[in-house]
């Protein structure tokens, strides 16, 4: 008896965000995803000390060495140990991938909720600007950014995240449009909650789901795109390893030495998998109807 009551009280005190986190912690799958993500981040941070070999040490003897005991993932075309390059490469790939996905999501959600909430003029103007931006091929945008603002991590993240913003805005706008006229939104407005509160605690939780799915799916090719940026002065310069670059380097040897591509590909897949597990968990936690 008491237990139910306490649960009830505690929930009420944490407020909405606390409840979502509370339910998220209960979701085993999401927690597995979170744990692996944390492990990967820790591995990336510690990589300079824990990689079995120096990621840049080339060796003629071990060129294209197949996975063996000394080299778990084998060696690439320059005789460098792939496992160490993946561990060290996680720094660049994870950082770039996560940061630009985060930036794209934050900007996208902000813009999307503004567009969804106000509609009418604001909606039209912002969406038309997005049409314009989305017409420009991503590569060109990145070259322009690199030319105008110079290279550097900040501009790389900007170049990588610009591509993701329009998609997030469109998705959010779509689902807000359905929710916008619901009775509970009007009710919230009638008891004159601040606009910000209406958006964050009423509109967003009920319309964020498609965005979570698209963002967690998008991280995979954000990492791949980071590789193409190194040719235009942005992103990571060789020989610092980066998963996307390792994949494109291994591309020409795909039929003869597939292990060059398999392991970086697997690394990206694991990141996408974890994020999706987390994303699903988050989305289920946000939907109170979901008890199971």
């Amino acid at each position, binding site marked *: 008896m008491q237990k139910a009551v306490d649960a009830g009280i505690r929930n009420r005190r944490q407020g909405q965000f606390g409840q979502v986190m509370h339910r998220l912690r209960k979701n085993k799958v999401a927690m597995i995803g979170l744990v692996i993500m944390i492990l990967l981040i820790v591995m990336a941070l510690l990589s300079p000390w824990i990689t079995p070999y120096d990621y840049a040490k080339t060796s003629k003897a071990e060129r294209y060495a197949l996975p063996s005991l000394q080299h778990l993932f084998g060696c690439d075309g320059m005789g460098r140990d792939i496992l160490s390059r993946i561990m060290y490469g996680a720094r660049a790939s994870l950082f770039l991938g996560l940061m630009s996905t985060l930036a794209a999501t934050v900007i996208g959600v902000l813009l999307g909720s503004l567009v969804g909430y106000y509609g009418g003029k604001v909606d039209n103007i912002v969406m038309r600007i997005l049409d314009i931006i989305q017409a420009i091929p991503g590569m060109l945008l990145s070259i322009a950014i690199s030319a105008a603002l110079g290279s550097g991590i900040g501009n790389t993240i900007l170049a990588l995240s610009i591509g993701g913003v329009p998609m997030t805005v469109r998705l959010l706008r779509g689902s807000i449009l359905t929710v916008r006229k619901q009775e509970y939104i009007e009710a919230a407005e009638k008891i004159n909650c601040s606009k910000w509160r209406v958006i964050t605690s009423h509109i967003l939780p009920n319309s964020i789901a498609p965005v979570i799915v698209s963002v967690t799916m998008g991280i995979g090719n954000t990492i791949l795109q980071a590789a193409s940026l190194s040719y235009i002065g942005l992103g990571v310069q060789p020989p610092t390893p980066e998963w996307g670059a390792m994949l494109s380097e291994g591309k020409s040897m795909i039929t003869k030495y597939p292990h060059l591509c398999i392991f970086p590909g697997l690394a990206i*897949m694991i990141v996408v998998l974890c994020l999706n597990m987390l994303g699903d968990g988050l989305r289920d936690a946000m939907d109170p*109807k979901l008890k199971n």
Partner: protein
Amino acid sequence: MIRYIGKRLLWMIPVMLGIAILIFSIMYICPGEPAQSLLGPSATAVELAAKREEMGLNDPYIVRLGRYLYDTFIRFDLGTSYKFGTSVFAGLMERKQYTLVVALLCMALQVFVGTPLGIMAATHHNGLWDRVSMFLALVGVSIPAFWLALMLVLIFAVNLGWLPTSGVANGIASFILPCIANSFAGIASQARHTRSSMLEVIRSDYIVTAKAKGLSSKTVLFKHALPNALIPIITIVGNGMGMMLGGTVIIENVFAIPGVGRYMTDAITARDYPVVMGGVLILGLIFSLIMLLVDIVYAFVDPRIKAQYEGKKKAKKAPDVGTAKGGA
């Protein structure tokens, strides 16, 4: 509704102008030498400078922008490609059918394979089918397109010899592998999105009402649940179509398909200004039209959105009177 569409079509003009000015400015500040790619690697700087002058690339920004806008919007002449010597429009038209075939086939695969996968995953929430299809979807999204393409070629073309390795000479057979490779990511994201929005919808009260009316589970799913879950799915398909029409460079490169994607990317690397600017304008136009179509389909699917499009005056809220005769 027609008024809304009319307004949106009028908005196309500022959008096209915006794209033209933006793409021109990007190409203006974008470093790199069109002359270089034209004259080949063994050209010397003096020759390059002469060529730049001859191509009118040294005039000030405003002059070149004015000339470009005049050519594009008044004379509708997108200019001729430096590299190909043929008009940009003709270049695009020649290549559009290949990109169109790949785009349409991939979108069809995405919709007709992705959506059912998503629905099945949603209806068996946390069941085996849900886990399996979602794992496949994740693999589909994180596999780089070129890797999948080359693996498919290795198996079906080189070892089994069923299909051609590349090129467009063998009719539909040469498009099978490219479409599978290209649509894998699309199917994956379609399935994920369908599953997510179906999960949202399946638990709502009107689905229980539908069941209580004695409808079969199939009817409940396809007549009540799916239509309500369509909005995010339409956005994905619309956006995917827009991207696909711009051509998918990786697939076109690997399968040697002379599509718009390759034409545009080669133009960007070679700084072939007319092609880049012309191509971006036309693709931008197509993209905006598709986005308009998406908004129209929104209104078609969901009357609440339609009401918001038509603005406040038309869609009146029924006054809460409803007394009428009150009961028998």
